[in-house]
């Protein structure tokens, strides 16, 4: 029997919480923004990442709550722009004030939150997948931050910068595909 094709539906065989948790990795804009934010945040070490992480988390939770009330914004393009910009910042190891970094982290969290409402669900049914998204997004971000923070030695730091350039390049390409009307 044919069923509805849902952009944000559950994966086959997965519960809705788990689907929510992996959702940030299944959406190109969310995945690129999370990975580049993580590398950018962690590039200067764990101590410097402290203000950005709670800003991301709070904005994410707030905007997931807003999305659950029915607010539905397409912020993918903005997330691609953020990912490309942060990727370039990682590649050139750009120093920015902590306030700027934390603000960008908050904006990315807000974008991911607003773009993560599952299709076809209402009311209490939204809680498991959106809780999964909240926890999943934070965990994926922490992994990327830890990766960048651990790679502080000069040779390894070059690897982080190269990875940043790859992510920025990917974001630029996916952005172009999106603008050209290709399915992403």
């Amino acid at each position, binding site marked *: 029997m044919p069923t509805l094709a849902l952009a944000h539906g559950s994966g086959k065989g997965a519960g809705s919480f788990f689907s929510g948790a992996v959702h940030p990795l299944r959406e*190109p804009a969310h995945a*690129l923004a999370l990975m580049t934010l993580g590398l950018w945040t962690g590039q200067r070490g764990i101590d410097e990442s402290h203000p950005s992480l709670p800003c991301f988390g709070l904005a994410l939770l707030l905007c997931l709550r807003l999305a659950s009330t029915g607010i539905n914004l397409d912020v993918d393009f903005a997330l691609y722009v953020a990912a490309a910009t942060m990727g370039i910042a990682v*590649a050139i190891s750009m120093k920015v004030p902590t306030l700027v970094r934390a603000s960008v982290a908050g904006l990315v969290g807000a974008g991911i939150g607003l773009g993560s409402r599952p299709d076809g669900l209402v009311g209490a049914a939204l809680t498991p997948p959106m809780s999964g998204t909240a926890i999943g997004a934070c965990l994926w971000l922490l992994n990327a931050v830890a990766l960048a923070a651990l790679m502080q030695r000069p040779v390894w730091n070059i690897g982080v910068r190269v990875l940043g350039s790859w992510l920025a*390049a990917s974001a630029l*390409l996916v952005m172009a595909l999106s603008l050209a009307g290709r399915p992403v």
Partner: protein
Amino acid sequence: MLGWDHVIAMVAVGLWGAFLGMPAIWVLPVVFPLVMAFGGALGVMGVPLPGVEVGIALSAVLLGGMVAFAARPPLWVAAVLVASFAIFHGHAHGTELPQAANALAYSLGFVVATGLLHLSGIGFGLLTRWPQGRVLVRVVGAGIAAAGAAFLFGFA
């Protein structure tokens, strides 16, 4: 990765970066994918760019030649040269994107494949720490330039 003109040029970027040493060894492989993505974006959006295949073949000739002649220009010159050619490579990839391709997978795949080719060039280029290695690297550079010329003049 099956377009040999692309492959040899990617390897030449890594080779030249290793030949130039720090910081070129990582600057060139960072600049190339970024500018290539810009070229790819132009290709995807249908912006015409004349002489793409000539530009790609020429990139192999010039970058291979830089290694063969042990050219050591200032970093900014090397970066500008690499970036100029990256636009042609990216544009070719962008126009070749299959309609059915998964956008993120394609983008990541083509960027990562490019990076890995640079890495293979860098790895080989590290032989320059030995005198015989420097000769070998320059010979490979000459080979890349010759192959590029073959593509340029239609012999390959």
